[in-house]
């Protein structure tokens, strides 16, 4: 299996719902807690596994605003894993999920340096590296209702812009979306081969205009039609 996410840039409104759902689930999740520094004073910061960036494409007046949520891409060639000296970082054979074993990490940061997508954040309080677990502690929790065995960010997305699934299975929803909407990888040139894929904004629908009345008609006054109430 090759598990990952598809994110639809055509519908993401940048609400940050997935980011906070992620924070909420994972702070009590398998790699939790996700600590926060200066939570109630100047320059608050903390450990997040999913952040939303906003870009403007094009110049005034023809600009488009695009929201880009980013979490671990669970890359197929995950240099974050190869560089890790302790073996805390690893990519699971059975589903391709990239994880950090919290008991092994020594906090050297090298994996974060090796990650092009800013997906890894060192937890200042715990001293270990944190990253998206693809909610491994939800998707495999057989005690959860089947429909809820999904990543927290996917379940919560109010525009349903996030889809989770197996990219190895050509019939999975994610594979279909990637095909039909010609999904894109970020920074493909670096060769990490990220699994998470982004669906570019759709082309605008064509809207027809109603035929205009000819001048002769418009100058003619309005005529009453017999219409019963």
């Amino acid at each position, binding site marked *: 299996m090759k598990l990952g996410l598809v994110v639809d840039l055509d519908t993401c409104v940048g609400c940050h719902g997935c980011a906070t759902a992620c924070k909420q689930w994972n702070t009590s999740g398998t790699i939790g807690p996700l600590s926060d520094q200066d939570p109630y004073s100047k320059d608050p910061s903390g450990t997040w596994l999913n952040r939303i*960036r906003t*870009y403007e*494409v094009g110049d005034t007046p023809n600009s488009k605003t*695009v929201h880009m949520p980013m979490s671990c891409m669970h890359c197929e060639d995950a240099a974050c894993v190869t*560089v890790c000296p*302790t073996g805390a970082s690893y990519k699971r054979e059975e589903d391709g999920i990239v994880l950090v074993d919290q008991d092994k990490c020594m906090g050297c*940061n090298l994996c974060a*340096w090796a*990650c092009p997508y800013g997906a890894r954040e060192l937890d200042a309080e715990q001293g270990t590296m944190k990253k998206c677990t693809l909610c491994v502690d939800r998707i495999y929790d057989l005690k959860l209702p089947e429909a809820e065995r999904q990543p927290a960010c996917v379940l919560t997305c109010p525009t349903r812009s996030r889809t989770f699934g197996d990219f190895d299975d050509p019939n999975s929803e994610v594979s279909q979306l990637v095909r039909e909407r010609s999904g894109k990888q970020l920074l493909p*040139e670096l060769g990490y081969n990220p699994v998470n894929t982004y669906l570019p904004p759709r082309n605008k629908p064509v809207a027809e205009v109603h035929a205009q009345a000819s001048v002769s008609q418009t100058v003619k006054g309005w005529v009453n039609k017999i219409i019963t109430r």
Partner: protein
Amino acid sequence: MHPAFSVLIFTVASGAGYGLIFLLILGHLVGISALQDQMLILVAGITSLIFISCGLLASTLHLTNPKNAWRAFSRFKTSWLSREAVFAILFYPFVIGYLLAIYLQGSQLNGLSALLGVMSLVIAFITLFCTSMIYASLKTIKQWNTALTPVNYIVLGLMSGSLLLLAIQAMLAASPATDLYNLAFVFLAMGAVVKSIYFYWIGKPSGSTIKTATGFTQASVRLLDQGHSSNAFLNNEFGYTVEADKLLRIRMASLGLSFLIPALILMSTSSVLLVLAVFVCLAGLLAERWLFFAEARHVVRFFQANKKD
């Protein structure tokens, strides 16, 4: 990239240390006359060990969870950092054995001490190489991801090593030995050349852009919001920025201190001044390391914008 002081110290010190021991033993083995002196070998050897060990200690300072540092030996198979750690430790028994042999039976080599010597210098060199590869292997940082990185690092290590060696030799035997003297000169020249090539090379734009980072290749792309209004881990780790003119000044300083001034000092053959040359050079190399980080731009910066006040 944020230049962590501990890492600067580590790379400069261990670079010089390994360079020194490498040249020392090599010279001893190939029989350079000036290096057949027991006292010199012991003093230089110990000095290199001090440099190397301080470096290693410094390197553990930036770990946020040092209790797991020992696990760094686990991933020899893929991790250059792991390999560096393994070789750095492996180095000790051989070099200590070698120095012990010299201590006990003087500078004449026998089979065992020669073997220990050979092993030490080989491992020293490999360790230098591994350290440089930690950086060179990162595709995320264009300024590091080049063969120039190991070449630079090794040459500068040997250069500082050669200066150290010369200084120690000159201190002990009132006057500097010509071939060590020439060796230092050659390395200073090489160092200046490779570093200049590096500076020229990173000047050329290439690699990823905000367009490939966002997938919008048709039009201009601007980051409007990074999703958090105060700096967070990624800003602090990768957001390091220095004004261009300041960078230029530090470049000049680094070139001057690392190569030019030591070279000038070398002209005057006074042993005391040689020691000064070593320190000037090491200072220059610290600046060079600092630049190595400060001038490195991680691709994550396309996704981040540092808070200005």
